[in-house]
């Protein structure tokens, strides 16, 4: 069913459950390292392999990160809460239960304000946060020997337990209502804002392509004007901002088609398909597991003191919304300019580049033009480019002091992105400095005059415009690194002509 038709008849209600892998050095309940991409099953120990007799101990940094995120999301922080065991059998879960939190979350009742662009201008939505709780990740299973890489048809499966026990925060929204046709954009804006918040807090670098932020998207529809919510579907595996938007849009259309044909929406788990942008049915409610939650007797209750919570609150950094307001005012940006920065995911990067010494306009220019283009070409997020704000600031500085032309600066960026080192190293290694040293330039000028006696004669005769050909020869000889203005001045000087 067409999207607009669906929205004309039905009102969507959304719910988002987001898992964020924390960037702690050690796992949630043991001291194993958490480095991404390590050799399989090398970051494991008796605890995260669930060897008989081993016991979990809570990672204090993970707890602190959870409280800080809760505070940044305007949540209340529980003065006493417990971990619970979520029991189900699966080979990638060493204990066959996951340590999570059930009816006693660490953080609850918060909100996050998000802004969505509409043709009528920016519009703000308040997303209510139900809870933020701590849990541990599972291992990773690969199904081999089959055609599809799925469990069905595979000959055998292998499990990597390096990820088992990595700390996760689960952030659950309350039902998000009254978004109408903006539902997909609100969902996307929420996940984006949450991601930026997590980054600003420094509790995770949120590399979505590595699965360090994963989303489950709940959608239900009710006829316009109705007050009773429809049956919801839960779409798992939604692992990019664009996919969040697409998944919501797809589910709205799918639900609308089912309802319109007189059918009933089945409460079920669905899986998002990156290639088609659609979802396919997974587990239905009938087969749903009974997780037999109960408080984990291996762990003592978590009871953060009010003093500690206040200390953490006082230590929160400037959060993205406040940063946007400040930057808009300080840099004197229009709504559109701010929107471009936000849409390009560049605001934090530009701010950091400014902090590193670049003028705001220059920093914006490089990130929004050159670097955004590179990111699009490589199909990665802007922040995933292997260049730091400090390096961009240095490039800006080199251009400003005349050591690089814009063209050369782009080559320096090529080098940095290619992993050849920082800007200065690339300049050195590639020999990219602008040639404005008069003796080196002078030699090139003399050579150009000697090689082009006819042109030199014309210039001497007053046809100053002909000097352009000599400048071109100088530029060619210096592989573009000469300062063209200086070269021209020298040529005229040598030929005894006033420019």
């Amino acid at each position, binding site marked *: 069913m067409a999207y607009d038709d669906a929205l004309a008849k039905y009102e969507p209600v959304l719910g988002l459950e987001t898992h964020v892998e924390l960037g702690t050095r050690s796992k949630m309940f043991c001291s194993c390292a958490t480095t991404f991409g390590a050799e399989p099953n090398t970051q494991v120990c008796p605890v995260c392999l669930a060897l008989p007799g081993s016991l979990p101990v809570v990672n204090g940094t993970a707890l602190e990160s959870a409280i800080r995120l809760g505070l940044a999301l305007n949540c209340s922080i529980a003065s006493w809460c417990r971990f619970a065991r979520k029991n189900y059998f699966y080979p990638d879960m060493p204990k066959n239960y996951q340590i999570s939190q059930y009816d006693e979350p660490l953080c609850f009742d918060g909100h996050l304000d998000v802004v969505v662009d509409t043709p009528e201008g920016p519009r703000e939505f308040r997303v209510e946060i139900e809870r933020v709780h701590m849990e541990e990740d599972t291992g990773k299973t690969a199904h081999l020997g089959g055609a599809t890489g799925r469990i069905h048809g595979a000959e055998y499966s292998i499990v990597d337990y390096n990820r088992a026990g990595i700390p996760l925060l689960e952030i659950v929204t309350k039902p998000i209502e009254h978004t109408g046709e903006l539902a997909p954009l609100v969902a996307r804006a929420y996940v984006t804002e949450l991601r930026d918040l997590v980054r600003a807090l420094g509790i995770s670098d949120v590399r979505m392509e590595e699965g360090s932020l994963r989303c489950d998207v709940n959608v239900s529809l009710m006829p316009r004007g109705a007050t009773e919510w429809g049956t919801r579907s839960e779409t798992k595996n939604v692992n990019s901002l664009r996919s969040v938007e697409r998944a919501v849009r797809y589910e709205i259309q799918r639900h609308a088609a089912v309802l319109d044909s007189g059918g009933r929406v089945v409460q079920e788990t669905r899986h998002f398909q990156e290639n088609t942008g659609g979802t396919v049915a997974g587990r239905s409610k009938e087969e749903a597991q009974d997780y037999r939650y109960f408080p984990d007797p291996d762990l*003592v209750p978590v009871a953060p003191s009010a003093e500690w919570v206040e200390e953490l609150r006082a230590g929160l950094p400037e959060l993205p919304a406040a940063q946007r307001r400040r930057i808009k005012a300080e840099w004197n940006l229009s709504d559109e300019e701010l929107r471009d920065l936000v849409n390009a995911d560049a605001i934090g990067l530009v701010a950091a580049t400014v902090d590193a010494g670049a003028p705001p306009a220059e920093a914006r220019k490089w990130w929004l033009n050159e670097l955004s283009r590179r990111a699009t070409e490589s199909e990665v997020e802007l922040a995933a480019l292997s260049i730091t704000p400090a390096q961009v600031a240095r490039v800006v500085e080199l251009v400003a002091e005349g050591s690089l032309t814009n063209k050369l600066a782009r080559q320096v960026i090529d080098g940095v992105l290619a992993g050849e080192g920082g800007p200065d190293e690339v300049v050195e290694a590639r020999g990219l400095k602008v040639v404005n040293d008069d003796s080196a330039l002078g030699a090139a000028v003399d050579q150009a005059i000697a090689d082009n006696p006819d042109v030199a004669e014309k210039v001497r005769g007053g046809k100053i415009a002909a000097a352009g050909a000599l400048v071109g020869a100088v530029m060619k000889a210096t592989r573009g690194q000469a300062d063209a203005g200086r070269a021209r001045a020298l040529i005229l000087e040598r030929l005894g002509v006033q420019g």
Partner: protein
Amino acid sequence: MNNDLIRLSAAELGAAIRAGQTSAVEATRAYLDRIAAVDGDVNAFLHVDDEVALEQARAVDARIAAGEETGPLAGVPVAHKDVFTTKDMPTTAASKILEGWRPPYDATVTERLRDAGLVILGKTNMDEFAMGSSTENSAYGPTRNPWDLDRIPGGSSGGSSAAVAAFEAPLATGTDTGGSIRQPAAVCGLVGAKPTYGGSSRYGLIAFASSLDTPGPFARNVLDAALLHEAFSGHDPRDSTSIDAPVPPVVEAARRADVAGLRIGIVREFSGEGYQAGVLQRFNEAVELLESMGAKVVEVSCPSFTTALPAYYLIAPSECSSNLARFDAMRYGLRVGDDGTRSAEEVMSLTRAEGFGPEVKRRIILGTYALSSGYYDAYYGSAQQVRTLIKRDFDAAFEHVDVLVSPTTPTTAFPLGERTDDPMAMYLADLCTIPTNLAGNAALSVPCGLAPEDGLPVGLQIMAPALADDRTYRVGAAVEAALRDAWGGELLAKNAYAV
């Protein structure tokens, strides 16, 4: 065989080794010879490796020779319950599912035994995963009671109690979840203590019921038990439920051995129907003895104790159903049916069907049911409420008395096979010991004579508040001293396997 060495108490043997009158190697040889001579009858050990034991003994002798500060038990052999992980010996919890498993790490209790210079002779038999009261649930055949080989040695730590009673070891470790140290100690005529929950570490103890499991000592006398208690107890950062407090002064209390002025409460609910006449007779005599030594004896009522058994049989199975989920054939232990045609789930199911014994399955099923959605509140939830009531009964009683006393078990050792088809009858063996586990308090069982009708040992249970373990040792030592005079020596000297 060196019976003179074997006859020494652990304290005496330690002193003799320190004084250079004998060595750890000689003591270890004496006990290994003793095991070789009698364990065919008793079946107390699941695993003994002479060379591994002697190697430890040689290392201890070298430490002593080098002048290292070693504790009072350095060089003294110990039998170690097969529920604690040991790097140099297999660890099976008497289950087929872990047959031959060699842990890559030592339990904290194991580590502390080694640090204190104790020599681990081998691993003792037990009810599978510590579930039982007779050691008949071992996958490796029952252990027999040295007082009468046709009777049970108690359980679950029956291998440990039988080993000490048959003089195969001067000391043994055990774990007490519902009475698994005190009941075997009582029916074998030994001293056995259940420390305060959290007073001894559970790290490396293969979990049965996490909120109840407590490592504790077995010995022939109270002082030896106190020395072993002190050697392996104390705070362990690897166990979150471990208490960060000094070990109660149990050795000092065992040496003090007086009860003058102490207020002792008799639990009214622990007598009457179901109690063997001879057990009550010896218990009453012990109470009179305490009174004659200057203790003030009063009767107290703890009405909730009568509901302790059903509460225990909901809480312990619930926790075990989750704790034992990790035995799934994926990472260690038995694997059944992995012939390349079956799914992981099928292999898990076949392995668990074959690897677990009937009592373990009974409890897993019971616990799975009790935690199920819709039943949780009625079963697990109300059992937790009962637990709170039991704690309150203890608290109320301890406002008026310093310790509580009761028979340790309602009957003396029953014949092998008598209760294997009647789980309820088997469960009743722990009637008097379970409340202490549910409350997390300290308790100790000390021999108080032989029942006139069957000539088998009777135990006196002494219960104290959490972290007041020393009181149980103080009272136990006083009873022991008085009765030793009356008996003309240790009660244990009267058993068929005494040396």
